[in-house]
């Protein structure tokens, strides 16, 4: 009989069909959907993220694991919904106004999804008002800004100011990243966190969301049977 460790291992290896098969088997055997999510999927993707950070896995391998998780999530989703299990957090991402650089932000989004978060990617050249609209619409715990140009990074501060003016600042944490940015810059503009790379973004996102909720992120996955 398949177990959660086997599921996690198959996910790390990016075996799409195998992950789906084990997920079905675990559900049929009565394993709670929240447990499958936490101890199978998220645990597996945590290993993947750690291996990527240690340069033991390339991005295509990581994405293959993410693809396997996505396929199996389609099977798991109805059970999670029925059990009231929610995503570990909701994140709105976007490249700030004037900047069209995309790929780094996209990679971060995929890694956050792998960590069980719901990601709303607003794309590139996102003006402050679009971030505000997305915050109102999706009620995220975290908003992430990306920029690659020295002439667009200051739009991060402008966007934070706009979110503050809209009286939404205390409802979200803000994380930034991108080649010209740094922890010092994040501190200067009043962001809550900075991530140097995609692996770091997952860690920072978890910490920020946990801080906002005042508890461990993973504990938000209720251990309930389907």
């Amino acid at each position: 009989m398949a177990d959660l460790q086997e599921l996690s291992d198959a996910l790390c290896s990016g075996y799409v069909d195998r992950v789906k098969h084990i997920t079905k088997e675990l559900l049929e055997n009565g394993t709670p959907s929240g447990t499958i999510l936490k101890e199978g999927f998220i645990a597996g993707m945590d290993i993947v993220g750690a291996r990527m950070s240690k340069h033991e896995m390339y991005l295509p391998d990581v994405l293959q694991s993410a693809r396997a998780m996505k396929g199996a999530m389609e099977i798991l989703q109805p059970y999670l919904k029925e059990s009231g299990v929610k995503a570990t957090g909701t994140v709105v991402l976007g490249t700030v106004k004037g900047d069209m650089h995309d790929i780094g932000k996209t990679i971060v989004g995929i890694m956050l999804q792998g960590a069980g978060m719901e990601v709303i990617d607003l794309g590139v050249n996102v003006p402050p008002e679009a971030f505000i609209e997305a915050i109102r619409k999706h009620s995220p715990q975290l908003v992430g800004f990306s920029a690659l140009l020295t002439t667009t990074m200051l739009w991060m501060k402008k966007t934070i100011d706009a979110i503050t003016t809209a009286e939404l600042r205390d409802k979200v944490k803000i994380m930034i990243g991108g080649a010209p940015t740094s922890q010092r810059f994040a501190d200067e503009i009043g962001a809550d966190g900075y991530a140097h790379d995609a692996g770091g973004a997952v860690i920072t996102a978890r910490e920020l969301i946990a801080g906002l909720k005042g508890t461990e992120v993973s504990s938000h996955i209720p251990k309930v049977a389907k």
Partner: protein
Amino acid sequence: MMATVRVQPPAKTPGLAISDSRQLMFGKCPNPVTCGFDLVIGNGTVFPEINFTLPQMTIEQTTWRNVTDHYREIGEAIVSTARRLRIPGIVVEFELLPPMTENPAWGAEVTRILSDRLRRGYEEDGLHSALRVTPVDIRDIVRPPNLRSGKEWDLMRRSFDQCARAGAHILSIESVGGKEVHDEALMYGDIAGIVFALGVLAPRDMEFLWRNILRTCREYGIVAGGDSACGFANTAMQLASQSLLPEVIAAIDRGASAVRSLVAVECGAIGPSKDCAYEGPILKAITGIPISMEGKSASCAHFSPVGNIAGAMCDLWSNESVQNIRLLSGSAPEAFLELLAYDCRLYNNALNTGRADVYRAMLVESDVRINVQALVLSPESTVRIADAIVSTTGHYRKTVAAALECCTVICEALEAKQLELSRSEMLWLKRTEESLQSLPENEDSFIASMMSAYGHLIDPSSYGL
């Protein structure tokens, strides 16, 4: 007086302009270009190409005066540094930032500031120079990109026109057609998707785009420089440098990207090619145009594993971009121009004293066995990849041929123990080569299969599909 542009069409025959790798030399090319203020590029001298950008600031109406002050300051610094170091000639590249393309009058104003300063440098000090202007390709601001119509395309067209009128001597671009597919394919390490982007989508867009750029260049009597696979192969290079992507994918992507960059020349561009087009040596071998390259002197903008070898065949030597900030010595553009100037003195001393072969060998050998991306840029590899490209027809088949030749070059170097790769790199090399070999001969079949995988990312009308 501004020199008349000497347009020498590159070789149209299936052969190579430079088929002997020993002739693929820095500072020399079969089709030199005369432009700007009496500057002859590729005729026995390597010149610096200085690039710069603004420091941390926004570009808005309220900051515009500050923006133009920066460019005036940069222009002064460049001319005075050139005078101090007795630089025999220089190319200055003004790469527009997005708001300057979105507001064509802004880009034109900065072009005029720089062009006027170079003119005075020529008239007062006899400084031979040319101003390359590179508007930003803003067409991918919407997804899927609308490449052939709409507001962004209209603004870009006007930006080229107004910059040409304001005093640009060379027009270039880093075009983005196909990038929306290439980014996705790169992330998944999918070589078929990479070939679709580089060999099908990008050439179709570039044929459309470069016909328009050429029209502007002819109208104003200025040089159509070239394009760059910056958004493609340089993205791969950067992902590989962060260990997110296998180095072999980045190396194969580089060789394959030459086919799409070649399209600009097929449309009438005569060089110098763009500095960030590391695929430039392949273009030089095929067409004989002068090329601009960047390597160790561009570490102010990004890191690369090809710092020395990138300069082995250059005609212009560039720093990619540096912010206009103060350093202990002076401004960063001044400091980097000094670095480039001393590099160029070495090139030119080697050329003038009959030691160019030795110097080129040192540049090549110091990098080529350390990194697979350097391997595909060696003069020998360059000629082999170029030969693979001209030995077949159609951009799709040429792209596959270039990619496969990269695989062969890498495999041979491994067998000869001239290069080492990790086990995972070897697996990716094998997987990629097998995928390339399994691609259909027929382009229509290939497009049909790719549209089912990537069609959701593109607007087919942008590519005439």
